[in-house]
Every structure is written in C-alpha cells, then in structure tokens.
C-alpha cells in the first residue's frame, strides 16, 4: 500500500451513511456501561475544510459486552458534516495498525434536543473491563463564518469558528484535551475556558477532567484564514463510455468564492503591483488531479476557450493547473467546463458473471474544494441493460435517457447525486451493466445503409424518365 494516507486508506472503510433507521438501537443500555477514559481532539482549521481527528480510549465498565460506540454531534455540526470515518487501532507507536470500522447514523432516545448520533460498530464486542482505542475523523464544511462579512481588497479575511471546548459525547469522559490549529498566528480572540492557552498557531483547551455525558461549553475562535474558500456550488460530471475505446469525461463547474464578500473597488493596479498585500483571500489558480493517460483535455466556458491552463502528465497521475478567467474575490463566481478523454481499458472491466463494469473515481478532481452538489452521470453505450451502481456511501440515484450521435433508442444514463462532497469522497465506485457488442455496429451499418439507399435512389432517378412529354 502506498504511504500517502495510511490512516483511512482501505476501501472497506467506506460504508458510511447507510440508511438512518435501519437498526433501531439495540444497545441503548451500553451508553451507561461505556465510558471514555481519554479523548483527544485535534481540529485543523488551516483551510475551509475543517478536519477533526478524534482519538477515543473507550472502556466498558458495564456488565454486558458492548459492540457499538456512539458519537454525538450538535445540530450545527451535523448540518455541515461531510463525512465520518472511524478506525480501530492496535499495536504500539511505530507498529500501529488501523482497521477501518463501520459507521452508521443512528438515533438515541436520550440525547438532548437535536443531537445527531453516529454509531461505530466495533470489530469485536468490548467485554467488561476491556478498553479499546478508536480513531475518528470527521470533516465539516461551511463552518467558518467570515467576520467582517465584507472586506475590501487590502484587508485579510477573518473568520469565526464555533465549537465546544468539551467534547459532546453520550458517555462520561474522564479526561479530554482539544487542540485547535489555526493557519496563522493571527488570532483575534478566543473564548477562554480554563485551562486554555495559545502557543503559535495552536490553541489548547484542556485537559478537562470528569465531564458528564452531553457536557457542552461553547467557544468562539476569531482568527485569520486567507486560504482560498473555493466552493463548487454545482458540479456535473458526465462520463460517457464508448466501446470503441474511449471514456469521455465532461465536468461542468459552477465555482464560487465562499469567503468574506468583496467590498468596494477592485484595483488591478494594486493587485498586480503589490500581490502580497492585496487580495490575500482571493485565488486565481486551481489544481485538478486527473487520471493518468488522460488525453484531449480542454478547458473552456460558455463563451469559448480559457487560455490559462497547464497540463502535466506522468505515468501515475495528471495534473491540470488552470486559472479561471479572472481572480476570484469573496462572493465572485465563475463557471467553466473541463473535458478529457481516457483510454477505455483503464476503467472498464468485465466481471466474472459476464457483466461489464466501469470503475471510476467519485468526487471532484479539484483539490481543496467543497462541492455543494455533485451530479455524476454515467452515460452507458446504446443498448446497455440492467445498470446498477455500487457506491460506498449513500447517494441518490435515478436513470435518464440521452440521445447522442445518431442514436435511435437512446443511451441509458445512471445519475448519482450527492451533496456536500469533500476530497475524502474521491474513492472508486462501480457501475455494472450488460452490453451486447453487436450494438457497436448499429451506427456504422445504419450509415452504410443510408448511403447505399441514397445511391440506389440516385441510380434509379437517373434511369427513370418521369417527364410527361414523349
């Protein structure tokens, strides 16, 4: 396995967001039995995608074995929650290994108003007196609130982050600490909940001892964050499969800068002569990671090509670095289309039962962006039947029909929709379908027939005398 992200790398870690009420909670009693010995929370605020790493040391103090651990989120968090992953750790320090765990959303009867729960299913039930360590990662989007709401070109962007100094949990927490990492040392203010201190780019809350279940202590951090708040409001990816050897991908973006809104004049002079001091929160470069062996890449918008892009390819990946037509300041928007072709054999396979399946990456190729609404369309070749999509998390699905070059019956389109997509959703998914290769010949035959008929008609016209006069 490559080393990029050893933590949550395995494909099995992906069964999230399964249906809400699938299991009416069976172990509600376990909330009484379990308690958390030690909780450490690291909140990374360096970009607009907030990552929270939570390490929980759980002990079963009850009598019956517990196989589930619950995580609690406040309503505000739950609304912006993009993904929750959990893993069990074993081993010490260097040789630590991570085993991904199943995470499901759940309902608990005794939670305070609006609290949302997720259930982590342990690999082996926790017996009385045993402890286990869980690593949880959850990602929040749209949780940094710019303040001031409007800034001028020369100001830098300040944002609020709201959270609780104390971990919201259905369990008793013996000891806990929260670390908040800010992008720069400029922190305007933060709520002090003793003991709390700030050192460099890190805020430390805690350690707090012996907090009862559902303790909450709101904190507000006001700090500088000039990272690009690039949000794709809507992304439509169309993946068109041609059995003649090509997969054509068309991605339509509607991009916005979701940071503090730009106020007043935009001076290009300032922007060009003092790039450090002005437009600190604006951005003009974007990076898309495309699959290797990509070809025929284009980048355009409604009114033609956009001329500022740069494609680097090697055998492992392709990187498209591009600029929107204009730099994006807070509140500015832009739309564009990126399209590329890929060799079919890299993505289309035949499953043992004779069906074909497309194996492609879900999510958005842009780095460091949030996608509010992702619409993924897989256009199967004409004549395909029985499409089924296998996606490791919950998405909305439906079918459409699209008519493309010389189609008669139309192509089946599998449409997958998901909201609030972050780079962690870039995992493979599959679309299975059956296809008879004879359909590949339909269009060439149709064309040949049309030309043949045309020539027959011409010949017969030239040999038939239709004139009335003799």
């Amino acid at each position, binding site marked *: 396995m490559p080393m990029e992200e050893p933590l949550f790398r395995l494909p099995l870690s992906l069964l999230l967001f399964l249906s809400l009420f699938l299991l009416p909670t069976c172990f509600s009693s376990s909330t009484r039995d379990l308690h958390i010995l030690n909780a450490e929370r690291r909140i990374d605020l360096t970009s607009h995608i907030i990552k929270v790493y939570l390490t929980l040391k759980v002990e079963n103090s009850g009598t019956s074995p517990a196989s589930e651990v619950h995580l609690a989120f406040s309503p505000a968090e739950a609304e912006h929650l993009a993904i929750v992953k959990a893993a069990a750790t074993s081993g010490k320090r260097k040789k630590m290994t991570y085993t991904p765990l199943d995470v499901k959303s759940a309902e608990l009867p005794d939670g305070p108003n609006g609290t949302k729960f997720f259930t982590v299913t342990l690999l082996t039930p926790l017996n009385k007196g045993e402890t286990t360590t869980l690593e949880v990662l959850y990602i929040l989007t749209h949780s940094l609130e710019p303040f001031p709401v409007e800034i001028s070109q020369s100001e830098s962007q300040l944002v609020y982050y709201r959270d609780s100094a104390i971990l919201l949990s259905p369990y008793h927490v013996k000891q806990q600490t929260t670390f908040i990492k800010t992008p720069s040392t400029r922190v305007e203010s933060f709520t002090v909940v003793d003991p709390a201190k700030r050192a460099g780019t890190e805020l430390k809350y805690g350690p707090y001892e012996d907090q009862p279940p559902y303790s909450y202590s709101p904190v507000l951090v006001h700090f500088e964050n000039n990272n690009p708040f690039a949000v794709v409001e809507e992304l439509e990816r169309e993946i068109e499969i041609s059995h003649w050897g090509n997969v054509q991908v068309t991605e339509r973006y509607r991009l916005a800068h979701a940071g503090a809104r730009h106020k*007043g*004049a*935009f*001076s*290009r*002079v300032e922007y060009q*002569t003092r790039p450090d001091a002005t437009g600190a929160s604006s951005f003009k470069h974007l990076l898309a990671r495309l699959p290797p062996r990509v070809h025929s890449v284009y980048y355009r*918008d*409604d*009114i*033609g*090509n*956009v*001329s500022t892009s740069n494609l680097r390819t090697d055998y492992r990946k392709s990187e498209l670095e591009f600029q929107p*037509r*204009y730099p994006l300041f807070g*509140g*500015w*928007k*832009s*739309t564009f289309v990126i399209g590329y072709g890929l060799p079919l054999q890299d993505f289309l396979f035949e499953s043992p039962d004779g069906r074909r399946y497309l194996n492609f990456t879900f999510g958005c190729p842009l780095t460091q962006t949030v996608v509010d609404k992702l619409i993924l369309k897989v256009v199967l070749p004409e004549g395909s039947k029985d499409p089924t999509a296998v996606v490791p998390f919950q998405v909305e699905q439906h079918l459409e029909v699209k*008519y*493309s*070059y*010389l*189609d*008669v019956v139309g192509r089946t389109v599998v449409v997958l929709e998901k909201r609030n997509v972050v780079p962690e959703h870039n995992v493979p998914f599959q679309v299975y379908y059956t296809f008879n290769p004879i359909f590949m010949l339909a269009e060439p035959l149709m064309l040949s027939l049309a030309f043949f008929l045309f020539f027959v008609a011409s010949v017969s016209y030239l040999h038939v005398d239709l004139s009335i006069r003799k």
Partner: protein
Amino acid sequence: MAASDAHKGDVSMRNAFGSVLAFLILLLIGVLAFSIRLFSVIKYESVIHEFDPYFNYRVTQFLTKNGIYDFWNWFDDRTWYPLGRVIGGTVYPGLTLTAGTLYWLLNSLNIPLSVETVCVFTAPIFSAFASWATYLLTKEVKGVGAGLTAAALLAMVPSYISRSVAGSYDNEAVAIFALIFTFYLYLKTLNTGSLFYATLNSLSYFYMVCSWGGYTFIINLIPMHVLLCIVTGRYSSRLYIAYAPLVVLGTLLAALVPVVGFNAVMTSEHFASFLVFIIIHVVALVYYIKGILSPKMFKVALALVVSVGLAVCFAMVAVLIALVASSPTKGWSGRSLSLLDPTYASKYIPIIASVSEHQPPTWPSYFMDINVLAFLIPAGIIACFSPLSDASSFVVLYIVLSVYFSGVMVRLMLVLAPAACILSGIALSQAFDVFTRSIKFQLPSLSDHSHIDAGDASSENVVLDDTIKTDKSEDTPKERTTKRSKKKEKEPVEKPPSKSQLKKRLSVLPFEASIVAVFLLVLLVAFYVVHCVWAAAEAYSAPSIVLTSHSNDGLHVFDDFREAYAWLSHNTDVDDKVASWWDYGYQTTAMANRTVIVDNNTWNNTHIATVGTAMSSPEKAAWEIFHSLDVKYVLVVFGGLVGYPSDDINKFLWMVRIGGGVFPHIKEPDYLRDDGKAFDRVRRTEIGKKYFKLTHFEEVFTTHHWMVRIYKLKPPKNRIRGKNKRSKSKTSSTTTSKRKGTRRNPF
C-alpha cells in the same frame, strides 16, 4: 456509318468521363473552399468572431430555443435600454433561419452539435455552395472550363474569405451564395427561356432578400442589364420571361420579409426595376404588334403607340417623382445615398462614416483582396466580347458596377469578388484553351487526335468546350486545377500574332510561345494560391475578441474582452444595465447577457449621441446622464498598457462628433487641446490628466491586461457632502469620465 458511330461513341464516352471529372473537381473545390476557412479554428478556436456575428449568434440561440413564431415577435428588452428593439422586424432573417434549420436538422438526426458550432461552420459551408454557384453561373456564360476555373478562384478569393472564415457568422456569408445563385438562375432563364427557372430565380431572390440588405444590388443590376439588352436590340421573349416574373414574384416575396415590407415598393432603390418593368412591356407590345401587322401598318401604329406610350410614361414618371419627393430622404436610405454620393455620409451621418468598413478602399486593399484577379479582369472582359452574348454582357455589366461600388465602400469589395473571379476564370480558361490547343495541334504524335479536335474546335461552342476541357484534364488533371485560375495578361498580347498565323480555320500559336505562356500562367496562378492561403491563415483568421502577439518569450494571448464579459455575466445582477460605446453592445448582450444602452445596430442616433455625450462629459454630468439611463456599470476599453490601438480613446473623437451632432454643447475643438504629461503607449503621447480621483464612479473590475475596465456608478451621496464633492469634481476633471477612467495613473 460505323466510323461515325465509333466517333460518336468516343465523344459521348469522353463527355461522360468529362462530366464525372468535372463533378469530382467541383467536389474538391467545395472541400477547398471549406477547409481554407478553417485556419481560424485551428489557429485560434471554434468561436464566433467580432461584433455582428455575436448578435446573429444570439438571435440564432433565441430561434432554436423559442421557435420561429417567438422569433418573429421577439421584442428584445436587453438592448437599447429603455427603448428596446423589435428584433423580428429589424433583422434580415436569412442567415439565422439557415443556421437554425441546419441545427434543427442535425439535432433531429441526434447529432448533438451546439448552436455555436453550427453557427461557426455555416459560413465555410456556404462558401462551398457559393463556389458551386459560381461554376454554374460561369458555365452559363462561357462553358464548363471557365466555370471550373471561376469556381476554384472564388473558393479562395481573399475578399470573400475575409467575411466567411469559420466563426464569421455574418449575413454576407450566406448572401454571397444567394447573390451568385440568383444571377445564375437569371442567366439560366435568359439562356433557356424556361418559366421554371424564372420561378426558381424569384425564390432565390427571396432568399437573398432574407439574407442581406445588399439585395438592392440585384434589383438594380438586373433591370440595368435588361435595359442594356433592349437598347442594344437584344430583346427576346427569353428576356421577358427572365425579367417580368422576377419583378412581380420577387417584389411580392420581398415584401413578405418583415424588415423589407413595403420598402419593396416604396423606396427608390426599387424604382429602377419598376421602370424597366414598364419599358419591357412597352417593348414587348411593340414587338408583338410588329409581328401581327404589315410593315406599313406597323409604321402607322408605331407613331400612335409612341405618342400614347410617351404620354403614359410621362404620367408614370410624374407619379414616381411625386412619390420620391414626398419621402424625406427622397426615398433613399443613408447607406444607398452614400453609395451614389461618396461624400454624403461623412457630411451628414457620422455614424455611417465612423465605421471603418464604410470608408473607400485603398489600392493596396484591392491587391490584398482580389490579388492577381485585378489584372485578369480586363482580359476577361475582352473574352466576354468574343462573342458577346446576353449572358456575357451581364457579366460585363456586373463587373463594371461592382468596381464602382467597391470604390465607394471597402465592404462592397465583397460584391466585386465574385465578378472578378468569374471574369478571371473566363480569361484564364480561354487563354489555356488557346495555348493548349496550339500545343496539341502541333504535337506530331497527337496529329490524329488533333484532326478530330480541330474539327470539333472549328465547329461550335459548348460541346467542344467540354471535350477540350476533358482532354486537358486527362493530360494533367492535377495541374489543371491550379492552371485553371490564370491566364490573363498574356492573352491580349498573344492574340494579334495568333490572328496572323491562321491555319485553315484554326488560330494556332507558335509551339514554344504556347509552352512559355502556359508556364507563366501556371506561375501566376500559383502566386495567387500562395497569396490566398497566406491571407486566409494570417490576415483574416483572427477572431478579434482574442488577440495574440508574438514576442521573444513566446506567444501572448490577450483574452481580456471575454474576461470582462465573463465577469459581468457572473458577478453582476442579471438586470443591471451596462453602458459602453456601441461597438461593444452586441458582445455584451451575447456574452455577458446584460442589458446595454446602445449596440452595433445604430438605429437610433439620438440614443448613441446620449452615450457619446456622457462619455465626453465631466464626471458629474456623465454620472447624471448614465444615472438617468438607469446604468449601473460603464465599460470602457483601454489599450494604453499593452498597445491595443482600437480602443475607446481611438474612437473618442467619434463619440464627440456623434454626441455633438445632437447635443450642441459638445464641441469637437474643446477636446483637442494638448496639455499633459503622462505617457500613452498606443499613441505614443503623454496623457492629459494625471493623479486624479474619481468621485462618482468606482473601478469594480479591470482585466488582466487592463484592456477592459468596468466602472460602477456610485450611489448618490448625502446632500451636503455631495455639494462639496461636486464642486471639487468640476474643477478637477475637465476631460471625459472615460478618459479619466482609463488614464488613471497607477504609479
């Protein structure tokens, strides 16, 4: 008997072969015409060019989205705010309907091309059609060989390429095809006397009327030719059939086009055709009476008819004059008047005069646009006189008139181009005909055939032409295509000796002279081809919304216009009004989808003058004018940083003139003082005002190379503060708001 059968079979075989070959060559000419226009797509991108094409593109989008009925009733409220514009009644719908039909056809076959793609490639497709129409037309005049030559010449004539490269989605692109095709059908009717072709001719004329205001050229040229034929004693029933249905049907059909409507009978551009219509009937009557009466009776009748006829004519003329005099412009539109009197526009209509394509051309532009054809035309005229037929006299008249018109307006060079191609094609084809025949006749190895050919040649016209052409193409099919284009200067020079060397009934030139002449002609044609390819690739392919420049460190792309339009379309409210000089109106509505105050249609001079006045007023006054028009953003173009010459300062004097034409307080001399010290890189002069601050406008966007700058009108201030500011701004800014904007010094 058997021998003559064999001979006949041989000839018909060769005819069949020749027509297949001609078909193939025509196909290749079509491909050539299409592909030579793709340089713009290959060098730049598949995008709509310039200004007017953007309007046509927008109209086509509307048509494909909303259908034909909504299109006719379309009242466009996104332009000429607050007046709006009735698009359905003020555009020539031919181009739009053509592209819309193409789009509909393709999409009903499930070929999902976008409207933009269809629009981009409409012009190249129609230039292929135009070259085929040229073939047909020239064939009617001088046979297949001349037709093929003319078609090949037209396929790549730079003048036409300049208006029909891929992306140049303008009326002219389809109108030139319609023009040539109408002329072809007229000549075809004239040659055959078939009512079928006469009807087709009217329909083709209808298509032309739909497509371009230049249809008045047709409706004046054809009557003039008819008159010429009558005067030179060439009246025939074929002429009558060619002309009378055209006037009746054509005028009725033309009146169906909303933009023409009653103009088809009310304006002076059309009166010539009605006058000739009367004359031809009088003449027809005379001929008819002459036919049924004995010569003596005829003389009596003639005296009677002439006196009655004259009286009727005078009455008609009087009515016409009364009609003409009653209309304010004497029935002539401004553009037509400036055609008849080249100084008219610059005297009275600055808007027409301000457009560069309405200026008279310079000699280099003739060489650039029709190249060697300019020298081949005289030879072609001479060839048309030997012998002079109805058709060839038409071609001569066509060239003479179009040369005059092209001398008045650069734009009409486009009408000259087909005529030049036809005549050069005739000249080249005739010259090659003479030379190759001379060569073949003197080749000993071919003496057998040459007897046959000589026989054929001495017999007559079209069939002969065919066979000879076929022979030539058999010899060197490849060379022939290039050869075909050129043959002119030599001919007049070589002709006198050929007369002296008559052998039997054949004019034969010396063998060596013929070889050299053919070689020189091929060279001339090669030069033409090289020039055309160069012109297509380098001169006429730039889309003008994207600019490029080559420097030491590579290619620079200046995509500022689209940057600004994209910014406008995504970051302003959908109902905001944007003011700019009228050149950018079409692009702003099409690309940014924002309401504009004036656009390239220029139908309302006062409105344009208002914007011109605002542009040339002090800041406060400009703010008030713009505010009264509900304008939120002002878009100005500034080339001073990167050296883009045709920016708003370049056009500034026109703004002053047009503004001053309606609002007399704007006086041109006020803007001609020179009192400044900052440097403008385009004009290599210092700018007048530096270090000023804008009070009533604020810069909200400037593109990467500063070429487009967008200013926002600040909301009105509180009274007391406003008063202070106002007095300050009055003193600090005497030049225009626009100048201030663009000349704001960064350093």
